[in-house]
């Protein structure tokens, strides 16, 4: 039997608001345990939550960017369960009236456009972290630093049809949130994680099969492995006439297998009810418009525009739009130097390479877009050669100085003086009679050798086009 894979993702992203969702304490990753806390975070008796409206702004931005409808009346609900890292015994979340619902995003899988519908995006508070002491089973510590950090949950419809597609969708969501600058999406720090629901059904069937849920994954690779494993596992069960058990499973990274969660799958009753300590959120047209106006160009739109406007190949555009900062940088360089292709090559190739070696990112590049554009213009007007430019750029990254400064200081200005170049050529021809012989007997490939020798004599400063032309002339005429 042929099976069709059906996957839906619940993506959790922490929002990078300055304060927590319901209190003023700083929302920052890390720190000594229990240093980013206050009486509200700890759920002390008598405390009340106060909504951080910036978190609502961010959620609306995510919703609008993902083509969601916005609930004009939204509210928070309490979700109850007991766990040491949940101080109040309930999580403030959203059940019946999420901020955003009924959206979709498009993304590319192997050059094809796919669309995944989004069921809802709601806002909630993150929990703390339980720390189980190594080698001791009599004690558990709790760190509440993360507790109360705003978190959005983006719930997709079961529209994804392969692990690969699920990953592509997940990446697309991450990219959008990064472009919106609402989440760090730092998977290692756990600020971007996901649960996956996966089931199989006979190809052509309209009904869904029984699904399993894979919990709390925070790496693209692991999600892909886990989903692929589940596809195989469920297919084997179904082929042998068995039934998939609806359960929550965890991915064992070491062994590359998924495992049913120990013990219980007693249906938990969260006893949701409307949070009485917060008033409902009423969202008017003006609020929505304010957020809509603040939205940046989104990754897919930017890619299409870059291809169209700058005539760049898709592969280059994917690299250049990898982050909003990089795309903005590229665009500034392209517009300033007037040569989008050259700008693309310098940004993608040498600049990124040098930055990586220097342990820096585009955001804290010592070379601003205008400085790079200036350098490219110096190539265009023949002040320096492309080869010299490479060296100049390396210096720019290392010192933060401008191209002009470096060229002047090191005397790297390109030499286009015909007399000087001819002198070098004559010297090279005189010193290499054997190669001259070869050239003249038809092995014109040795031209490159001559060019190299002339460039060496000029310490790289000779204008390569001129060297080429003059060499040819000299070698051919005799």
């Amino acid at each position, binding site marked *: 039997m042929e099976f069709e894979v059906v996957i839906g993702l619940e993506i959790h992203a922490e929002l990078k608001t300055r304060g927590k969702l319901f209190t003023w304490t700083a929302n920052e990753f890390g720190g000594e345990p229990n240093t980013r806390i206050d009486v509200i975070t700890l759920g*002390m008796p*008598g405390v*009340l939550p106060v909504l951080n409206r910036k978190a609502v702004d961010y959620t609306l931005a995510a919703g609008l960017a993902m083509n969601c409808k916005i609930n004009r009346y939204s509210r928070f609900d309490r979700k109850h369960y007991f766990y040491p890292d949940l101080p109040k015994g309930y999580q403030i979340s959203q059940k019946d009236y999420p901020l955003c619902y009924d959206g979709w995003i498009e993304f590319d899988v192997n050059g094809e456009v796919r669309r995944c519908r989004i069921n809802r995006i709601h806002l909630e508070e993150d929990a703390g972290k339980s720390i189980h002491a190594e080698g001791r089973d009599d004690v558990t510590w709790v760190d509440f630093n993360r507790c109360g950090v705003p978190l959005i949950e983006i719930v997709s419809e079961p529209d994804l049809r392969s692990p690969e597609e699920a990953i592509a969708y997940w990446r697309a969501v991450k990219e959008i949130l990064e472009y919106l600058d609402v989440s760090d999406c730092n998977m290692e720090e756990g600020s971007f994680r996901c649960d996956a629901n996966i089931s199989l059904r006979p190809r052509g069937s309209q009904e869904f099969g029984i699904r399993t849920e894979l919990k709390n994954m925070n790496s693209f690779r692991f999600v892909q492995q886990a989903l692929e494993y589940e596809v195989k596992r469920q297919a084997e069960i179904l082929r042998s006439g068995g039934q998939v058990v609806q359960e929550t499973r965890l991915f064992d990274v070491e062994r590359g297998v998924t495992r049913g969660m120990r013990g219980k799958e007693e249906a938990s009753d969260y006893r949701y*009810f409307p949070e*009485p300590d917060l008033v409902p959120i009423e969202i008017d047209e003006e609020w929505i418009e304010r957020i809509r106006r603040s939205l940046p160009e989104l990754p897919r739109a930017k890619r299409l525009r870059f291809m169209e406007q700058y005539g760049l190949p898709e592969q280059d555009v994917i690299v250049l739009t990898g982050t909003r900062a990089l795309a903005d940088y590229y665009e500034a360089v392209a517009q300033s130097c007037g040569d989008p292709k050259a700008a693309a090559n310098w940004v993608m190739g040498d600049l990124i390479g040098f930055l990586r070696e220097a342990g820096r990112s585009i955001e804290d590049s010592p070379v601003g877009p205008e400085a790079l554009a200036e350098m490219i213009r110096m190539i265009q007007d023949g002040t320096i050669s492309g080869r010299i430019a490479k060296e100049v750029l390396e210096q720019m990254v290392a010192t933060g100085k401008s191209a002009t400064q470096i060229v002047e200081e090191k005397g790297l200005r390109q030499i286009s003086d015909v007399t000087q170049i001819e002198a070098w050529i004559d010297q090279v021809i005189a010193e290499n009679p054997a190669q001259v012989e070869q050239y003249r007997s038809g092995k014109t490939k040795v031209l490159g050798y001559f060019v190299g020798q002339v460039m060496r004599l000029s310490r790289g400063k000779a204008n390569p086009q001129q060297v080429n032309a003059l060499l040819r002339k000299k070698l051919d005429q005799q």
Partner: protein
Amino acid sequence: MSTELPLYHRPAHELSAALRRGEIGTVELARAVFERIRAVDEKLHTYLTVTETIGMETAAEVDRLLNRGEPLPPLAGIPIGIKDVICTRGIRTTCASKILEPFVSPYDATVMRKLHLQRIVLTGKLNMDEFAMGSSNENSAFGPCRNPWDTDRVPGGSSGGSAAAVAAGTAIAALGSDTGGSIRQPAAFCGVVGMKPTYGRVSRFGLVAFASSLDQIGPLTKDVTDCALILNAICGHDRYDSTSADVPVPDFTEFLIPEVRGLRIGIPQEYFIEGIHPEVETAVRRAIEQLSEMGAQIEEISLPHTEYAVATYYIIAPAEASSNLARYDGVRYGYRTPNAEDLIEMYRKTRGEGFGPEVKRRIMIGTYALSSGYYDAYYLKAQKVRTLIKQDFDRAFEAVDVILTPVTPTPAFRLGELVDDPLQMYLSDIFTIPANLAGLPGISLPCGQTREGLPIGMQLLGKPFDEGTILRVAYAFEQANPYHRLRPAL
């Protein structure tokens, strides 16, 4: 007449004036109250924690300021006790529960910050029913408080300690909290004035939550003037409480005029039910007549959904309570069982050993009401009925300015009388619960005594944020009657 009373029996506004005139000293006043506590509180048990050192320090400070002739707020130097459900920084806040017995709050409730700005003399933390659940103060984990008028009787609840303290002079005034009548009912039982302000009028930040959508802090005082003074100090929007209302706060003392002519007073027929104690009914009806004679216009009105109020309340309040009390898990503060092998056992034993029987009963009711499959039938339905009850009042207030009712069906009952009959106990809040469900302000003030000498109270309910008008009617009635000057013989 009241000037002949001992200091601890005199109302705050008189003491405040006497302090300013230099007739008495703040330390002298504070000492009188703390001595009164020492003299009678073994019998009454109005306090769970007495803060004499802190109180005397403030008193000395206020005396220094008075001597220097500095302008001071109206409540400066007034000995005030606080129901032990309101968080006080550095002072134990137990909610009369074993589970919070060791809890010292690291922060002050908003009302405490406001009272400290007034430089009150904090006398201590007052007894109450555990987590404000109860109508008799018998649910205190640290022993019941007794009614100063008859120590075999209950002071009411849950703010029983607050009402008894003001009546007995172990405090000049007190703060309580009212979720279903917890200020007004004990005020009636103890013959003092108690007000539950409009929901949202006073910040709940720092009030340990029982039922968040119903809880409201309010004053218990020896007379209506003191009630207005304390309201002036504690009302107002608070950015730490999203449910506190951003509406202007008037000077409530401006409503203290002995004049009710032309005011329309509604008498809801549903509040004079069968089973109401005859002496209570007589006293309240006499009060109605008196107000009529004073020129108020008396209107019969109907609040048809009144009979559903208790049932509605006993879904909503326990539902919210079951959620609000989930945080007492022994992990971060308060009591933790010393003998648990694993996490689940720690939860079970901590909560099992920490909570008293009434609290457990309500957690179970509330948990049940919120369970999937029952939510719609109970909680959601109760919310709908709550809306109907609120609409009853909206309609009634189109025709009248205030509503007058009894506070309780009976005067104070005996300790132990209703302990085994929770349903009967719940019915003692039948006249006070609707105001909580509708979010309205309500005041309870003495309007008579039984032949046995037990206080009887009447209740005035007002439109949202119209505490002023009920203060005015209460003040006019009080000025025409002697009840607020009566003191229990102890």
